[in-house]
């Protein structure tokens, strides 16, 4: 029996019991859709991260920290998340002072002349416009970043031209919180930034007369006026919570503030350390990045590249994908039990017909193949249906989730990713599992004795 005849024969048989076949195919389709949606969700998250990192040239970024960050320990959720190692002493912590910053700049100039080196400065502040106010994380960046992806092509207006400019760049969602309807409306407007810092006089009073502590924290607020120069691109907004304000790095030096590091240092009085929480190096390509990382490691610093972080993320994603795939596979396997049931029912109904076919010359293999192809056809149709259902369901879930994400972060994310390999694998897996489900019924049909079947009424 040729394959084409086998296929026509099998499809004609499936058409005879349209409702039963349709329901079985639907079951397989739902199982396949669950598998597709699960795996595409993991794949989508990974692709979103990968694309964003890549679009923003973050794979060319190195972050130097006082202590060595063991990513594998962090990502394996160990209790001991950070350990400190230096060039000689594993417990030594490197204080990232201005002299370290200059040394890093010198090395960078030698290996990657166009690299941008700057300290990581992040601090919270209150932003006020008119009667509206909100709290935002402020980041101080060099003006030189205006050549780097994400800052080069900002949404509206322009990135500040100098490190001492009084312009700031803000995220779109922050503008909305401040009452601006469009970026065009906001650019050029002056906003007030309020920072908190330690009040020297109050601090002295608290130190000398602890009893006075009850009168309040030794903290003072300072207000500054800034002009909104530009609005951040969507890409760069995706990587943060959405509430973001960027000011020139030199300007930030004159802003009195408590950043996270200084707050932590207040809590770690015994260690007597002061310095940047991190130094960032933005090279122009990955080759330079790798060379720079090696050079910085060689002088005992603790560089971590985004590539390293992403590799660790990928391991996590793999586990996540596997867990999702297992859940999806269970759904599909349960659905394929329906195929076994359908095939057994079909054999019972066609018992005499199988006898006739065998009496006129069908071999065991012919009968087995007929039922195998019927199972595979259900698997194939279910698989294709599953891809379509999975895709539609993913679009709906994605659209609904993006309503929330858009409100919170001002951007839209691709939660699901359907690469060709996933679509083909889902259909192939559905067919394979269906063949497995059809194995027992097909063999049972093949073993039917014609004499016995012809007696059956």
């Amino acid at each position, binding site marked *: *029996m*040729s394959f084409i*005849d086998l296929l026509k*024969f099998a499809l*004609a*048989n499936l058409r*005879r019991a349209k409702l039963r076949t349709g329901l079985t195919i639907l079951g397989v389709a739902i199982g396949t859709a669950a598998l597709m949606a699960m795996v595409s969700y993991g794949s989508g998250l990974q692709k979103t991260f990968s694309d964003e990192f890549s679009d923003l040239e973050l794979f060319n970024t190195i972050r130097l920290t006082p202590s060595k960050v063991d990513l594998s320990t962090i990502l394996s959720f160990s209790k001991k998340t950070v350990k400190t190692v230096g060039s000689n002493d594993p417990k030594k912590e490197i204080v990232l002072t201005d002299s370290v910053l200059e040394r890093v700049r010198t090395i960078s100039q030698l290996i990657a002349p166009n690299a941008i080196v700057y300290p990581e400065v992040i601090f919270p502040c209150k932003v006020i416009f008119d009667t509206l106010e909100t709290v935002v994380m402020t980041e101080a960046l060099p003006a030189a970043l205006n050549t780097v992806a994400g800052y080069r092509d900002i949404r509206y207006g322009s990135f500040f031209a100098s490190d001492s400019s009084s312009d700031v760049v803000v995220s779109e969602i922050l503008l909305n919180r401040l009452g601006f309807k469009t970026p065009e409306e906001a650019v050029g407007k002056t906003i007030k930034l309020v920072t908190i810092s330690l009040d020297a006089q109050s601090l002295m009073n608290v130190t000398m007369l602890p009893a006075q502590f009850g009168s309040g924290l030794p903290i003072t607020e300072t207000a500054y006026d800034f002009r909104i120069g530009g609005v951040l691109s969507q890409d760069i907004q995706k990587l943060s919570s959405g509430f973001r304000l960027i000011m020139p790095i030199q300007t930030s030096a004159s802003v009195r503030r408590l950043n996270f590091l200084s707050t932590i240092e207040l809590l770690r009085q015994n260690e007597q350390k002061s310095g940047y929480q991190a130094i960032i190096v933005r090279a122009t390509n990955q080759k330079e990045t790798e060379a720079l990382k090696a050079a910085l490691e060689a002088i005992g610093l603790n560089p971590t590249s985004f590539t390293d972080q992403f590799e660790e993320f990928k391991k996590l994603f793999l586990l996540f994908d596997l867990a999702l795939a297992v859940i999806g596979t269970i759904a599909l396997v349960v659905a394929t039990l329906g195929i076994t049931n359908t095939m057994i029912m079909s054999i019972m109904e066609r018992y*005499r*017909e199988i*006898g*006739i*076919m*065998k*009496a*006129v*010359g*069908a*071999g*065991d*293999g*012919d009968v087995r193949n007929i039922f195998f192809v019927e199972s595979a056809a259900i698997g194939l149709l279910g698989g294709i249906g599953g891809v379509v259902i999975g895709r539609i369901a993913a679009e709906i879930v994605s659209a609904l989730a993006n309503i929330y994400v858009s409100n919170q972060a001002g951007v839209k994310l691709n939660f699901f990713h359907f690469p060709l390999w996933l679509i083909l694998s889902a259909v192939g897996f559905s067919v394979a599992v269906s063949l497995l489900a059809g194995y027992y019924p097909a063999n049972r049909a093949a073993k039917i*004795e*014609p*004499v016995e079947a*012809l007696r059956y009424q």
Partner: protein
Amino acid sequence: MPESDAARSSAQPLIVVKDVGRVYNLNAAPVAALRSVSFSVESGDFVAIVGKSGSGKSTLLNLIGGMDKPSTGVITVAGKVISEMSSDQLAAYRRQSVGMIFQSFNLIANMSAWENVALPMLFSGASESKRLERAKTLLDMVGLSHRVEHRPTELSGGEQQRVAIARALVNDPYFLLADEPTGNLDSRTSDEIVRLLQDIHKQGKTVLMITHDLSLAELLATRIITLKDGDIISDDTRSDAVPKAFNH
């Protein structure tokens, strides 16, 4: 396709049944449906196997048709021992060497007349165009050229049996094996089928017919083998049988 009848007939009988017995183990008690049965059939014969219900004639049909295996003895068809064939060899034997005609027609309900006729060719791997061409020729031969696309439920009993006869001939087998071919038909339709079988025999095809109807056997067969309780009780050759019947 089997070798030509002429080439074979010069060598040996077409069918040789030697000491064949068939015992069924029903509820642990063995029941002998056939006891040591022996006979042979020459190419071109029209042999009727008659007997009452339970005489063993259906068992003998199943054994010669390759749908069952004897408990003892040997069945040889065209020089090949079918009683020792594997399952796949038996399937090929049923497809190529035997044309089965059943009392209840045994057509597949969801197939058209031509698809039913061509069913054995489907398992031979013949192309659809060849199957259709051959089926049309045979349906024309049995007088059903106007019923090619009709389903069995759209055909009368006589027409269904003619489709079954066309199916039996589709692979040009060595012989036809007919099991009560007129058992489910009224007398007028039976006459049509009898004439058709007679025509086929006249064209040189060997026919083995199982029937409990002695008058039908006398009308058609050149030889009548009578079974009783699993044994052959008579084997009469009637060389003048065919000319007597239906001189149309």
